[in-house]
């Protein structure tokens, strides 16, 4: 393969296609993605995605699960 044609790739084709979507299509895709993402709620219930907290306190796991 010609090295000059290789470009660093950061994101997937699905992500990159967002820039080509109109507002309606983006809305539909975004909301659909949020619905699908609910399937991981149990796995990530103790976690934080942003901010200064990373995980629900370990000592509180028993209280959370009761």
């Amino acid at each position, binding site marked *: 393969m010609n090295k000059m044609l290789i470009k660093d790739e950061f994101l997937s084709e699905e*992500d990159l296609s967002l*820039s080509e979507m109109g507002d309606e299509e983006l809305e539909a895709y975004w909301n659909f993605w949020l619905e699908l993402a609910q399937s991981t709620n149990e796995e990530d219930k103790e976690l934080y995605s*942003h901010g200064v907290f*990373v995980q629900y306190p370990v000592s*509180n796991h028993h209280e959370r699960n009761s």
Partner: protein
Amino acid sequence: MIKNIYIELTEKFNDGRLRAVICSGQAAVLHRIAVMSKDGDWIIREEQESLSHITQILEGYGAVYRFGAPLDIRWLKEGWSSHFEFMQGNLRIRTDFFTRPPRISSEMLEQLWNESEGKHPPFINKHLLAEMKKTNREKDYAVIGEIARRMENPRDIFLYSRSARDIIELAGAFPKALEEIKDRRELLTKLPCPTDELEKELDAERRKFMHANEERLLKYSDASRKWSEKWPEVRSLVSGRPLTESHAIISKNAEGVLPFAP
């Protein structure tokens, strides 16, 4: 306008005046970069009217506090974050707030508030998004890479690009811009150099940012230890209460336990 719970919340937060700007993952969606986060994050005005208004809006959704700092200026101004959660139908909605996001200077924040006026919805610009994405998560650096590709000014691309190939190509096309900007990013001072050398510098830089964020989080983790021990008791005190009541109880209980400054 796009209809989505995070847009809806932002509109309500900003009813009457600008109080909250979408950041992090949902800003990446609005920049049409990636959909990769379930939670909503906002930079909010560090003033009581804004905090009270936002609390009222969240109460209307039945939101409850997650473990975190109270939505209170005394903690927020020291970089703490506040976290809430509610269900909307079958969607678990999490809302995270900060007034002093990491790596964002007060000048950048002032600019953010100025440029966000009148925008519907307001969301952070690419610079701020790239800075906020310098976390300890590998996946965030791919987002920075794509954000940099969308920037227009060569100086900005030099500052944020995650691609050695792109940087070297840009250096050839815009040597003057490189000269003007290179002191703001250490790896740029290595140019000219082979691609693989710059790739190593990029990797090392990424590791440095990740470690810096880990150290920052560790500081807050250590400072919140006593609060985390008290949290089950506090949580039971607020169980079933409307958010504004919970907020008062949580704030009172956090005083003297969760330090204002970590």
